[in-house]
């Protein structure tokens, strides 16, 4: 059985441990057993139940869980060559890049067939959640208001009352957040309403955040009235804030990302990594999903038929926006739109 769960704080430790920034670092399980090193962009508390259930079945095994931002994932692995066994990330494009560039190893087991075709890239990248890019609204601010249903509604609303919303809107800083970049680029590809919205936001002095969690809390605490391209799953998970926030999905389309897992080619414990991946897959894709599965809704094995849900395809297309020149261009344009001075 596990001895104790050590929860260490953070930045300081990270500063001592290495160059890449670690947000959270925890060691679960027997301290002297085999250690599974997981690098993840998911907050520890979210995956904690799954980690516990994994370790319950495996005495003598420990999980060394590092939670970082997606950009730091690339830095740790590509730039600094750090060795990890398993990488879990919400930045699908970065995961594909790791797999494409040869950092990962394939994994096949009795559980991998549970993952549908569109959730499995070359048996290297496995999806284990489906989460929407939603809009979080302040209940208080929109109490006496018709809720915007489409992006166009949003644009119209923001344009109609700029004074009201000045400085009270927020979104991802795409330069900093991998997931934010992903959502933004996919949004931009889908419709030109994105750029118009960005311009509007820019005109309203939009606040930029690194992560969904901060955006959600900002809305809940009334610092901003609206946050765009927020992880809907996180927002809904904050049941404690249900009174103060509203989560909506724009009707004309809503992008949906998949959280994915890859096993590193130079993993020290590839079997354990595979076992954990299977554990995730089993939890996510069983019908019904496991009770300790933290993400919302059963990720249906068919593509969801929701009128507006637009899942992001797992494939080499995702490499395009990671192209140096392309990214340069996009960021330039984005800055021009959003950071208007």
């Amino acid at each position: 059985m596990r001895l104790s769960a050590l929860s260490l704080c953070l930045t300081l430790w990270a500063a001592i441990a290495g160059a890449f920034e670690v947000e959270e670092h925890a060691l679960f399980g027997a301290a002297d057993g085999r250690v599974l090193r997981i690098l993840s962009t998911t907050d520890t508390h979210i995956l904690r139940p799954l980690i516990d259930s994994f370790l319950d079945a495996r005495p003598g095994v420990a999980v060394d869980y590092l939670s970082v931002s997606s950009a730091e994932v690339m830095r740790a692995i590509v730039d600094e060559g750090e060795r990890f066994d398993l990488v879990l990330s919400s930045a699908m494009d970065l995961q594909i890049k790791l797999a494409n560039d040869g950092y990962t190893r394939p994994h096949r087991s009795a559980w991998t067939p549970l993952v549908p075709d569109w959730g499995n890239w070359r048996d290297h990248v496995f999806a284990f959640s489906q989460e929407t890019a939603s809009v979080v609204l302040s209940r208080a601010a929109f109490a006496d208001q018709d809720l915007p249903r489409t992006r166009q509604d949003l644009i119209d609303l923001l344009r109609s009352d700029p004074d009201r919303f000045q400085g009270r809107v927020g979104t991802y800083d795409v330069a900093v957040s991998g997931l934010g970049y992903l959502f933004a680029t996919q949004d931009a590809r889908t419709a030109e309403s994105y750029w118009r919205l960005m311009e509007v936001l820019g005109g309203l002095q939009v606040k930029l955040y690194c992560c969904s969690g901060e955006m959600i809390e900002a809305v809940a605490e009334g610092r901003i009235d609206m946050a765009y391209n927020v992880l809907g799953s996180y927002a809904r998970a904050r049941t404690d804030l249900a009174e103060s926030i509203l989560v909506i999905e724009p009707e004309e389309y809503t992008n949906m990302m998949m959280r994915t897992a890859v096993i590193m080619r130079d993993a020290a414990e590839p079997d354990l990594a595979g076992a954990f991946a299977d554990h995730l897959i089993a939890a996510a894709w069983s019908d019904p999903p496991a009770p300790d599965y933290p993400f919302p809704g059963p990720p249906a094995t068919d593509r969801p038929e929701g009128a507006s849900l637009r899942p992001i395809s797992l494939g080499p297309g995702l490499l395009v926006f990671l192209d140096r020149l392309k990214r340069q261009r996009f960021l330039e344009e984005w800055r021009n739109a959003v950071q208007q001075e």
Partner: protein
Amino acid sequence: MSDRLRSSGSIRRRLTIQLVGSAAVLAALLFLIVQTFTRELAEETHDRILLASATSIMDAVSVRAREVSVDLPYAALSMLSNVSDDRVFYRVMLGAETLTGYDDLPVPRPEPRAIGAMFETLVYKGESVRMATTVRWLSRNGVSTPLTISVAQTRTGQTERLADLTRTALLLGAGFFAVAVLLAVWTAQSSIRPLRELAGMVSRRGPTDLRPVTRPVPAEMAPLVRSLNSFIDRLRLSLSRSEDFIAEAAHRVRTPLATVRTQAENTLHRIERPENRNALREMIRAIDESSRAAGQLLDHAMVSFRADSLERTPFDLTDLVAELVNRLRPVADLKDIELFLEISGPHVMSGDPILVQNAVRNLLDNAIKYAPEESRVIVSLAGDATTHVLCIRDAAGGFHEDEIDGLTERFVRGRNAEGTVGSGLGLTIAREVAEAHGGRLDIANTKDGAGACVCLHFPSA
């Protein structure tokens, strides 16, 4: 005799093997052709997509104020995921400078002023990749610089596809082969059919059927059938000559003998002197002996001829024996010998009635000749489901035990036959007829030793 034909293999088997062999060759050829063709097609298709990707990137190149910029289209790489889940690499180079992409991707250096696409298979990051490169020449500072865009993709998906194609080609080849084998067997069978039919038809003929073969046959068989018919003609001619000869011989030998005998008898009536009478009686006896011998020799020849090509028809043995007994009754009456006929049940047998009649007549003749006056000769016909047994029992004193076995040899006469006219062929003829029908002749003395019992056994079926 005709079983000893040396067999030089089977036409049908040879045909089948040759056809199957050709089918195998064709199937292999089909497999190779299909495989090569589909492979090339698949590889060409892959190349085209890679080229399409590279071209779409090339189309997104813009030169702005001497700055070459590339706005990578999303479709350029996402279209490659339609091919397969393979790793994708790309590199955009201006001259020797990498603008973007994987800067260690080995891109071919284009020939000066070369246009069009280049395709290459190479190893990158430990895997085999197929790469398409497209070139556009830009003028920079008056120098013609190549802008090369290479798009590469690993070949796992391609390899799988090729394996599938090979499998399909193999199945196709195998299927074709299977069908071809069936066709080969059927073809061989049906080609042989005219031969078989002719063989069957000829072999079904009875032994005395000497009609020519008139049914239509394929051109290749015509010479054979013609020769066969000519053989049949010659045989028929030869046989009818033999039959004619026998008939003619009979007539020519017997008629003068008849004259001599009658005259001798007549003369005997007119002569009183005992020594002359004895001489004449001797003469008559000698004539009887020669005519009987001639008759039996001719009979024997006829019997052998008929027995060799035995033609079986069903006939009633009971009727035949009854008729024979009636026919010989006047002769038996001359010696006051009583002929008895004991028949149990109907006796229909399959055989040559003329041969059987001949055999029985010979035996009955024998019995009447050797039996003493006023004695009995009993003809019995019995038997079970498998055999007919015809026995002639007389009271003629029996045979000597030691000579019974040899009696049916030609020209052998028992010791008790001395003093009587006979040629010794009677029992031989009867034995040969019995054996020709698959039966046998038994000779045994009766239990009381007063006479002998000669039995003919004929199988039923």
